[in-house]
């Protein structure tokens, strides 16, 4: 065997190992990497009490309430199987935060069953669609429902 062929086989072997490593890490990354927990997991008791974690899910339509006197907001986070958790936060909500959209908040469950968030982040749509265009599309496809297109759709979180 020529030394060049040997080196070629060595590099090929290394590439295979790298590919295998990548596939294994990718497989391990399923299970969310514990980046966030869904309301369903939290209600099932997956998260130990008193631990800080991220709660992911959609903001339930019509659930956002702001306190009249202080900077406090409450909203309900739900998942696709309608498990719900109420989130309480005193932080400023980001620009993209809105009802029917995904959010990720970080905090702890309180003894009263409410989730106290130190940070609330909004996720954006993976759809890059101009507002005017998406409004027209909504009118054409769902004239009865009006503009609330998110209620019928399953969101990702």
């Amino acid at each position, binding site marked *: 065997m020529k030394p060049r062929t040997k080196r070629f086989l060595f590099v090929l072997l290394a*590439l295979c190992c790298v590919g295998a490593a990548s596939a294994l890490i990718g497989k391990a990354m399923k299970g969310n990497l514990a980046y966030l927990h869904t309301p369903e997991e939290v209600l099932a008791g997956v998260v130990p009490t008193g631990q800080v974690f991220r709660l992911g899910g959609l903001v339930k339509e019509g659930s956002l309430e702001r306190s009249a006197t202080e900077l406090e907001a409450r909203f309900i986070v739900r998942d696709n199987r309608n498990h719900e958790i109420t989130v309480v936060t005193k932080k400023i909500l980001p620009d993209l935060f809105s009802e029917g959209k995904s959010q990720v908040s970080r905090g702890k469950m309180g003894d009263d069953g409410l989730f106290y968030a130190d940070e609330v982040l909004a996720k954006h749509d993976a759809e890059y669609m101009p507002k005017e265009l998406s409004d027209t599309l909504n009118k054409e496809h769902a004239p009865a429902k009006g503009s609330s297109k998110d209620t019928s759709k399953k969101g990702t979180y």
Partner: protein
Amino acid sequence: MKINWFKYSAPMSFYPLAGKLIPLFWIAAIVFILGGLYWGFFKTADVLNDQKQYYRIIYVHVSSAWMAMWLYVVMVFWAMLGLIFNTRLSYMLASATAITGTVMTIIALATGAIWGKTSWGTYWDWDPKLTTFLILLFVYIGYIALQSAIDDVRRSDKASALLALVGLALVPIIYYAVNCPDPTECASLHQESSLKRVESNILIGMLVTTIGFWMYCFATTLMRARIIVLERERSTTWVSNLPEIKDSEVEIKS
């Protein structure tokens, strides 16, 4: 017709060829980047269905992020050629690519942070996509550091080439971090890549800017490769016979 692929693997013939190509790549880079950004800033919608004007950072963010990952693959390609064929120029191109790749990674992280603050509400979060991309930056820096830590050029080339090869595992993971078949399995803050769902006008801006970034990467990589050639081949006669080297020596003497 048999093409002699090895002809341009000699630094002596690569050096003048690169010198001729660099201005062409610069012109293409300027034309495509300005064109893409013009299209993106003035010819696309002001408001998306959830984001406002700030979404326009996408043209720089996506282009640089793609280039950061692509240049890593290119770097590994040169490193592998170097390992197999023991060609000096392959290693030189690998190390020239690494610097441009690092720059692209930093641009992608910085624009991502600015975009994240305005839309998500935070500059940084330890989300799978963001974290793996930060590791990509560290691998680039590790490659450059390892190469400059070993004095012997041949050994430093080989060692850093192996490091680059191992780091290749990261590229599919960065992609996979947000693009698994079942979206609930890899929940993250960063949205998935969704070229199909991007409006075509915005997509044109993105793709044209990306071509511009690519041309910029070609130009800077070749420029850096030429400098590395001069540095490593400085004791050869062809380098000392180069007009630019001769002239500068005359200047120093006089």
